[in-house]
């Protein structure tokens, strides 16, 4: 379990950040997703695309430790454990890994924010969860992050319910990046927003992901969002992955008929 710094460096370099093998999830007779396998490297942004009901959310929840799969393995290179099947960890260990190494941005900010506490406290909470106890430092970090996501700083002590949807989503993003996670999960992060708000937020997210060298798994049904954000795409249909590849390749030269349909049915950007 304990590794020397030297060994750890080797592990970081040689091992994938995430390795998924034969992952399936059935809801009774219904298939959520089936036989999904892939690997991700640090700093990579993976887009999961497909029409509604194709299994994107199911897969994301299995990957992020929220939904135990029916079969298969989800191995993550955790800072405390190295490459480990997240469902083999004890519950407290898994919760700690989720706090320390991950972020999760929900489509609906209400699911990802504490609506009873201020925007600033929402952003600072992950630091407190990691044991930080210096108010002034956390306040400053919270201000820095709200500034980074372009939130009006005079609103820092207001409750999220007084924010617009776009502002709420910015706060949720700041809250999920402040602790420098190794991997961020995002489920349709711009899905609930007006088109104009979406565009600005997407630009911002793209900058953050690039600047931080962040690894992210992004679920979207919107090919434009996928093209803008993702290095690599996984196309899902009826719970199965039908095509994977570099984003430009998949979008410009789709091989699978379903992908061709998906790509042609949206406005090109």
């Amino acid at each position, binding site marked *: 379990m304990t590794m020397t710094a030297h060994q750890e460096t080797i592990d970081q370099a040689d091992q994938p950040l995430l390795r998924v093998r034969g992952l399936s999830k059935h809801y009774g007779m219904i298939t959520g997703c089936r036989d999904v396998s892939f690997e991700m490297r640090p700093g990579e942004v993976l887009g999961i695309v497909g029409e509604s009901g194709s299994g994107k959310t199911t897969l994301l929840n299995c990957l992020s430790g929220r939904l135990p799969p029916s079969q298969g393995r989800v191995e993550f290179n955790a800072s405390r454990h190295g490459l480990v099947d997240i469902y083999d960890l004890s*519950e*407290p260990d898994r*919760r*700690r890994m989720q*706090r320390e190494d991950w972020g999760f941005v929900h489509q609906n900010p209400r699911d990802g924010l*504490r609506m*009873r*506490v*201020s925007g*600033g*406290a929402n952003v*600072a*909470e992950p630091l*407190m*969860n*990691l*044991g930080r*106890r*210096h*108010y*002034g430092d*956390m*306040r400053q970090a919270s201000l820095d992050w709200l500034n980074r996501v372009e939130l009006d700083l005079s609103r*820092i*002590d207001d409750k999220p319910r007084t924010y617009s949807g776009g502002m709420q989503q910015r706060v949720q993003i700041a809250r999920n990046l402040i602790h420098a996670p190794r991997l961020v999960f995002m489920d349709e992060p711009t899905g609930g927003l007006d088109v104009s708000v979406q565009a600005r937020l997407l630009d911002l997210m793209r900058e953050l992901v690039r600047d931080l060298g962040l690894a992210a798994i992004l679920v979207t049904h919107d090919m434009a969002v996928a093209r803008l954000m993702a290095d690599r795409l996984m196309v899902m249909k009826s719970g199965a992955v039908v095509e994977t590849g570099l984003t430009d390749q998949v979008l410009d030269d789709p091989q699978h008929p379903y992908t061709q349909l998906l790509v042609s049915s949206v406005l090109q950007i």
Partner: protein
Amino acid sequence: MNAQSNDAALTATSNSPERYYTYGYLDEQTKRMIRRAILKAVAIPGYQVPFGSREMPVPYGWGTGGIQLTAAIIGPDDVYKCIDQGADDTTNAVSIRRFFAKVADVATTEDTAEATIIQSRHRIPEHPLKDGQIMVFQVPQPEPLRGLEPREMETRAMHAYEEYGLQYVSLYENVSAFGRIAATAGYPVMVDERYLMSPSPIPKFDNPKLHNSQALMLFGAGREKRIYAIPPHTTVRSLDFEDYPFETQKWEESCALCAADDSYLDEVVLDDQGQRMFVCSDSHYCSDRRAQGLRGPMAGHELVDIDKDAGQ
């Protein structure tokens, strides 16, 4: 199924034939169940033990949790004190004290040093508690995380895995809004550096009295069906930030009646001209000091009729 419990024996000797209720009001089964919960609570300081809270002859919010604790531990040799805020003479305190005088045949007192069981909701007496004494607290909301996390499953997991970052979020909100940790009552503490605990609505002024106390502290929440405890000589730390350390309330004034400068003070309005004074919230502590001849600036003032309760 030997029904000859200790209490039953006591009841037989201490009861007159007219007594129709069980000693200490609760039936023996219930008392045993509560005692088991108390033992567990003492064994795991600060941990909230679920128990089968019973209907009591007072409404929830009037101290049903505390009354059940007292009923389960009291015996005829006990000397019972009950306070509401800091006072022995309010309706609620008088009623509960009379209740136990009747159903448990115990002597009652207002003297903190003399009491073996002290039931309270809002205060810990100023007179230092000693070995052998038991404080019984009536708790309205035992879960310190409830205001921030409404899901019971989640707060249970947080206690189980010692995930207490969320409690600091409420302190953070306090500092952001008021420039200091303004929370005054029910101020959260870590017990034995393991369990996060809400010390009922006592003022944070009383929090230091929880730390390394010689007395056993029992907490009962009737409606929420929880019992928890701080055994004697247990470490109790009030949460704070490195740059905003825990502080208790302080007053510029000293008690207008007994001149105490170390006690928790209540503001009292004297007349409709807006005259006010600060007096000890612990009524017995104050009258005791006055009986010793200690006098504050308002002692003997025409607006303050204290001579009769000064115990002279």
